[in-house]
């Protein structure tokens, strides 16, 4: 079995695009939240989201015809293109190698479904644009990556909702680890949606202005979007080509609460942490930093902190949420968490939880790295992802010295 490392990062986000801009933004605690423009939000009491306002796919992708692909697929392809450049890989060599992609998503190309729905409401079933149904399958996120980069291997889209980015990293890790692939692009992509904004709002889970994870007065998520991709390859191969190495994928854990479709369960989450540690061959005491799922809903943050205290004891490592800055990028979120963690590991800082005002006594003694990034020597990171359906997925990364 081969050791697997991350050598390229491709964030397309509302706080910055590309590893350098994204890293600087996360370190500075910048907010990517703004009033919604992608749909008419005037009828909603809460009208903020984390849109990637400056996303210009036609300037980022080289092969795809942007008219033929939905926004989430274009996020995935653009992120992958960036990650490959960041990894210093020659695109021609990559397309000749055993390479593929695994992308995670919550809602795939639901923006296309919303457009078809608008057409049906306005003009009836006969009026649907005949070119749109072809763009509906969520499988196209990974196909967009392979097509854009000319990859000939696996192309798989995991639709495990808000932990999907971690599922994708886990499967890509297994494919490289076992030698089934030499390079894998892994990550996630999602787009801001009217129906998802409405659904989360109806559940009482959308914050009015910004989300403030782990704060006593936290009131919910900010729906957001973006694309996040990582290049995974073998340590041996990375060393041979003199590649930069952000960190090593040490392992991952997956399980299911099997309890409730939308409410997180601290027991299932704690079990997932133990599985991730066992798979990565580490003990809780080895973890220097936890990149939280940290959605900013009262229920998630309580369940997550309860599980952390259960697994790590009364003095857990610092745990912060990049969703305080990006909002909840759904299927991309744990891939963004991985990117933020790896940049922090390389540059020696912990990303902050912004918008933080008051400790919540119900969350015990957790340290959310409030408001300011913190210099730190980070050797091992645990990156949490939880989701509807009780789909828990946690990845573990280590520094390669």
């Amino acid at each position, binding site marked *: 079995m081969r050791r697997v490392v991350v050598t390229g990062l491709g964030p397309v986000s509302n706080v910055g695009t590309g590893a350098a801009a994204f890293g600087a933004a996360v370190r500075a605690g910048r907010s990517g939240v703004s009033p919604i423009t992608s749909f008419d939000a005037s009828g*909603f009491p809460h009208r903020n989201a984390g849109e990637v306002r400056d996303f210009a796919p036609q300037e980022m992708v080289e092969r795809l015809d942007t008219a033929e692909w939905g926004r989430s697929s274009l996020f995935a392809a653009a992120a992958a293109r960036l990650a490959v450049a960041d990894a210093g890989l020659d695109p021609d060599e990559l397309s000749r190698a*055993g390479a*593929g992609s695994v992308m995670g*998503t*919550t*809602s795939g190309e*639901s923006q296309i*479904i919303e457009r*078809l*729905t608008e057409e049906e*409401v306005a003009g009836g*079933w006969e009026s*649907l644009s*005949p*070119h*749109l*149904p072809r763009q*509906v*399958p*969520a*499988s*196209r996120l990974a*196909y967009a990556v392979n*097509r854009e980069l000319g990859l*000939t*291997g*696996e*192309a*798989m*889209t*995991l*639709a*495990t*909702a808000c932990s999907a980015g971690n*599922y994708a990293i886990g499967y890509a890790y*297994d494919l490289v680890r*076992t*030698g*089934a*692939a030499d390079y894998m692009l892994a990550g996630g992509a999602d787009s801001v949606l*009217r*129906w998802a904004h*409405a*659904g989360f709002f*109806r*559940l009482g889970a959308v914050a009015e202005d910004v989300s403030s994870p782990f704060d006593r007065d936290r009131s919910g998520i900010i729906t957001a979007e973006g694309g996040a991709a990582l290049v995974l390859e073998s340590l041996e191969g990375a060393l041979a080509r003199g590649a930069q190495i952000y960190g090593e994928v040490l392992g991952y*854990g*997956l*399980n*299911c609460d*099997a309890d409730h*479709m939308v409410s997180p369960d601290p027991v*299932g989450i704690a*079990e997932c942490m133990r*599985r991730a540690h066992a*798979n990565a061959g580490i003990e809780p005491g080895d973890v220097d930093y936890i990149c939280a799922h940290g959605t900013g809903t009262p229920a998630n943050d309580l369940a997550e902190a309860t599980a952390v205290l259960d697994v790590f004891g009364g003095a857990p490592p610092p745990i912060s949420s990049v969703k305080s800055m990006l909002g909840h990028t759904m299927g991309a979120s744990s891939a963004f968490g991985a990117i933020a963690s790896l940049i922090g590991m390389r540059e020696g800082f912990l990303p902050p939880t912004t918008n933080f005002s008051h400790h919540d006594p119900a969350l015990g003694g957790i340290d959310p790295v409030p408001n300011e990034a913190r210099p730190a020597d980070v050797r091992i990171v645990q990156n949490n992802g939880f*989701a*509807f*359906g009780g*789909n828990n997925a946690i990845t573990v990364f280590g520094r390669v010295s």
Partner: protein
Amino acid sequence: MSSTRGGSPVLAVTGWSAVSPIGTGAAGFTEAVRTGRTGGADVSGMFDAPLPTGRAHAIPDFRAADHLGRKGTRHLDRSTALALVATKLALESTDAAVDGDAAGRAGLVLGTTAGSIRTTSEFSRDTLVEERPYLVNPVMFPGATINCPAGSSAIRHKLRGVNATVAGGQMAGLNVLRYGAHLIGGGHADVLLAGAVEEFSPHMAWGHRALTEGYDVPLGEGSAVFVVEDAERVRSRGRTPEAEVLASAFGTGGPDDTARTLEASVVRALRLAGVGADEVWGVATGEHGVEGLDGAEDAGVRAALGDGPVRIRVKRLVGECNSASGPFQLAALLAHHRTDPGLDGRVSVLTSVSADGAAGAAVVRGHRLPDGTVPAETHDEEGDEL
């Protein structure tokens, strides 16, 4: 090109089920394949919304409550309902351990195209037509999310292991087998329910009409689910699998390269399985009546395997079931093994291609059932309380 052998185990199939337009349960599906029964039903009364055709390969009389009882079935979207029943029947068909401590090592890998598109669209519709855009029905929110069938099935059956949803469309059957093999090989699960679900709806029907313009291809629906485990582990405990997925391969290329991508996948999967092309008795393809894709699949199969193997086109029976197509193809192969003892121990191939340029193959060895007989009507039909 990626492969599953070399790091991921041979998968044993130790149980399966189908909820299909031609029959329910492994026995019902097998009988339908044996007799060549085709789907096709009057669907005009299924929905308030208009449909492009009055007949389709849907299952209009499918009702979750017939299988699951009334409790908790009223608000289910159709995809989730189909998945709940298919996974229930699959669990009833296996001797794999999924209770007690084993439940933590048992999970699901379910394929889809984009979840219940109808539920997503109706939820989106409410944001347009209700007085306020947020006056959506919160009960339907989980069903609008793609992973609802897998998550709901885990809750229903108390499966606390890996829970994954693969949006694979036409490739979903291969996706779930490949992913399942890696999950088991990596120690993330011992037993997985691997399959896919696809629902019939006005949304699917109108979309399907646009995608198959100019061809007469009936739209189907349903779910097929296989209980898969590490074959070596199964045999070491003295259990006999009904079939083994020996190896698989998956590739992508340009949409015009599909025949070559498929040929390379079949050749690679056979090599990984250690099986010669001349040993293959049958090929279950995803051919469904749209010229270009069928032509590419046929050309890829012939290039890799010649004209010898029997061609099994299960979509002629069940219709175009999108992500559930691959699982129905595998079910059709196993149905042949159940009805023809002469196929015992022989090897077949399952192929899939997508309009997006993906192509792949799996190599399957089928066995006679342990008692060596064609199964009588088993409880997965009797237990339906129909």
